[in-house]
C-alpha cells in the first residue's frame, strides 16, 4: 500500500491542477494563473534538467540556452515568415498553389519608425484589399523544439569527452555565446529590443463552450500544463526503460558502463537531444505566451533558478524537480508581500531572494538529494531495508510463497 502513495498523490496533484482554473475565482485570477503557467514552464526546465544532470550526470549549465534556442526559433519564424494570397514583389517569396510564402527582409530595430520591411511596404500599397497571415504558431513551436534538438545534438557531440567542471563550463560558455550573439545580431534578432511574437491563440479559441480571447489565461494554462504532462510522461517512460538504466550507469561510471556493452556515446548524445528538445519546446511556448523574447531571458540567473529548483526538489528525481519548481515559483511570488515589524517595513521583493538562497544552502548542506525526492524515496524504497533483513533471515520464504 505504501508504495502506491506517490501514485495516489500524483493523481491528486493532477486533479488539483486540472480543476484549479475552474475553482479559483478571486480578483487576482489572471495574476495567479500567470504564476501557475510560469511555474509549469520552470517545471519543464527543472525536470528535463534533472534527467540530464541528476540521472545522466551531465551537469550542463546551458539548459537555459536551449530554452532560448526554442524561443528565438519560434520568434524568428513568426517574425520573418508569412503567407500571402498575392505576391508582394518586394520580398523573397515562394509560391505554393494559391498561396505565397513571404520571407520578410531583416531591418533591425528601426522597422516601426524610420523604415519598413518589404511586407509592411506591400501592405501599405495593398491597403485593406489583401491581408497576409502569420504562419501557424504550432509550426513555430515544433520548429523551435526541433532546433533545440539539433543544438542539443551538436553540444552533446562536442562535450562527449568532457566531464564535471569542464562540461559545466563548456555549456555555460555556449549559453553565454548564444546570448551575446542574439544581442549583437541586431539586424536579425533586434538585439536587446527583443522580438514580439503572436499569442498562442492570436484569434482566440473556444473551449468548454466558452470563447477565450488572446489575453485570457485559461488556454495557455492548459497548453503549458499539457506540455508539462507530455514531458513528464516521456521522462517517466525513459527513466523506466533501458535508456534510464544506461544513463544512470553512465552517471555512475562511464568506463565501467562501456566495458559492460553500453554505447556511452549514443546515450550521452541522446540524453542531450531529448532534454534540450524539452527545454526548447518550453521556451517556444513561453515566448508565444508572454508575447516577447529578449536576450535577458537567457541570463545566467535564470539557469541558476532552474538548477536551484531541481536541487531543492531533488535532482535525481524528475518528478521531485518538477514539484520543486512549482512550489518555489509559487513561494517566490507569495513572498513578494512586504510587511511591517515594529515600525520597520520589510521589503520582501528583495528579502524573498535571500530566503530562497538560504533554503538552497540548507538543502545542499543537510539534504543533498533535495527536500521532495527523499519523501518519494520513503514510499518507493522504504521497504527495501526490511525486505533485505527478511530475505537474509528466511531466504527460501519467498520461493515457498511463490509456489
Amino acid at each position, binding site marked *: 500500500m505504501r508504495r502506491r502513495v506517490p501514485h495516489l498523490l500524483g493523481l491528486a496533484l493532477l486533479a488539483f491542477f486540472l480543476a484549479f482554473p475552474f475553482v479559483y475565482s478571486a480578483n487576482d485570477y489572471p495574476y495567479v494563473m500567470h504564476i501557475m503557467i510560469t511555474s509549469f514552464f520552470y517545471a519543464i526546465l527543472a525536470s528535463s534538467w534533472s534527467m540530464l544532470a541528476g540521472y545522466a550526470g551531465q551537469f550542463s549549465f546551458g539548459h537555459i540556452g536551449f530554452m532560448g534556442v526554442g524561443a528565438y526559433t519560434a520568434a524568428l519564424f513568426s517574425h520573418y515568415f508569412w503567407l500571402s494570397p498575392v505576391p508582394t514583389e518586394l520580398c523573397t517569396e515562394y509560391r505554393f498553389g494559391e498561396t505565397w510564402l513571404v520571407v520578410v527582409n531583416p531591418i533591425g530595430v528601426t522597422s516601426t519608425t524610420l523604415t519598413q520591411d518589404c511586407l509592411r511596404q506591400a501592405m501599405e500599397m495593398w491597403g485593406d484589399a489583401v491581408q497576409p497571415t502569420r504562419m501557424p504558431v504550432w509550426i513555430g513551436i515544433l520548429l523551435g523544439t526541433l532546433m533545440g534538438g539539433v543544438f542539443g545534438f551538436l553540444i552533446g557531440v562536442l562535450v562527449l569527452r568532457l566531464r564535471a567542471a569542464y562540461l559545466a563550463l563548456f555549456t555555460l560558455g555556449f549559453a553565454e555565446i548564444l546570448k551575446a550573439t542574439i544581442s549583437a545580431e541586431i539586424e536579425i534578432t533586434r538585439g536587446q529590443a527583443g522580438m514580439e511574437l503572436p499569442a498562442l491563440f492570436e484569434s482566440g479559441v473556444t473551449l468548454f463552450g466558452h470563447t477565450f480571447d488572446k489575453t485570457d489565461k485559461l488556454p495557455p494554462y492548459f497548453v503549458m500544463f499539457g506540455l508539462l504532462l507530455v514531458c513528464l510522461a516521456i521522462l517517466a517512460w525513459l527513466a523506466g526503460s*533501458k535508456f534510464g*538504466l544506461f544513463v544512470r550507469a553512465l552517471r555512475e561510471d562511464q568506463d565501467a558502463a*562501456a*566495458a*559492460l*556493452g553500453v554505447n556511452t*556515446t549514443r546515450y550521452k548524445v541522446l540524453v542531450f537531444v531529448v532534454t534540450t528538445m524539452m527545454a526548447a519546446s518550453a521556451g517556444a511556448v513561453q515566448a508565444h505566451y508572454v508575447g516577447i523574447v529578449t536576450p535577458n531571458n537567457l541570463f545566467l540567473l535564470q539557469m541558476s533558478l532552474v538548477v536551484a529548483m531541481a536541487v531543492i526538489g531533488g535532482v*535525481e528525481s524528475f518528478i521531485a524537480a518538477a514539484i520543486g519548481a512549482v512550489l518555489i515559483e509559487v513561494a517566490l511570488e507569495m513572498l513578494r508581500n512586504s510587511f511591517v515589524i515594529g515600525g520597520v517595513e520589510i521589503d520582501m521583493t528583495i528579502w524573498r531572494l535571500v530566503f530562497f538562497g538560504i533554503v538552497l544552502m540548507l538543502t545542499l548542506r543537510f539534504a543533498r538529494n533535495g527536500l521532495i525526492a527523499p519523501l518519494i524515496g520513503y514510499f518507493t524504497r522504504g521497504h527495501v531495508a526490511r525486505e533485505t533483513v527478511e530475505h537474509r533471515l528466511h*531466504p527460501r520464504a519467498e520461493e515457498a510463497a511463490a509456489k
Partner: protein
Amino acid sequence: MIHLAVSNVHKRFGGLHALKGVTFEVNGPELIGLIGPNGAGKTTLTNVLDGAIKPNTGTVYLNGQRIDQLHPYEVAIAGLGRTFQVTRSFRRMSVLENLYVPALATRRAADRKAIHAKAMEVLEFLTLGHLRNEYAQALSGGQQKLLELGRLLMLDPGIVILDEPFAGVHPRLMEIIYAYIRRVNEEGKAIILISHQMDSIFSLSQRLLVLNFGGLIADGPPDEVKRDPAVIEAYLGTEEEPEGDAGARDDATDEDNPTHR
C-alpha cells in the same frame, strides 16, 4: 571455440614504453594467470584488450574479428569482458539494476523476464540474493567485488579478464570467487586472471603469462614458469636493475593518458 590472438602489441605513454611487443594466444577455455611486478604493464594490457586504450602498433583478434580499434562497448559485445582493479560498481543503482545493465546492453537474454530470472540465479550463486534491491553503495567492498563478477556473468562473454579479484577479500568470499572461476571456466569461457596472490594464481591457473617492464618474459605451465630464471629475477631482482627505461605502469587512467577513450 574461443580464440584470442594478441600480436606484437606496443603501447607508449610519451617516453614510457608500457607494452613492448606483447604476443600470445588464448585457445579455448583456458584458465590463464597473468602476473608481473607492479608497473609491469598488466592493467595496460587489459585496457588494450578491452578497447579502453588503443595500441600504437600490433593487433588483437577475438574469434577472427579484429578488436584493437573497437570501442570498449563493441569489444564487450564481441565477447570480451573484464573487471577492474578497483571495484567500479554502479553505486547509486540497486544490485539487480547493476546486473540488468550488461544483459540489456548486449541483448543476450531473450526478454526482461529471462534477464530477471538469470540475475536472480547469479545473485543466489554469489550469495547476494537478499541484497537484490539495495543500492550497490550499501554493499561491503568484498560484496561489491562479487557484484562486479556477477555483472560479467550477465554479460556472458567468451573471454573474461579478472583484475585482482582476491584483493582485500574475506576468506569466505574468496571461496565464492574460486567457485565463480570454476563455474565460468566450466561454462567454456577462457579466463585471464591477474593477481598478486601467488598461492591462488598458481593453484588455479593452467598456464601463466609473466610480464615485466612491458615485455612478456614467460608463457607456460605454472611449474615451468616458477623455475624460469627470468621470472625469478623479475620477482626477486638481481644486484643490477635494468636502466634507461621507466617501465610500464599498472594504473594508467584517462586523466594521464590522452589516448584513453
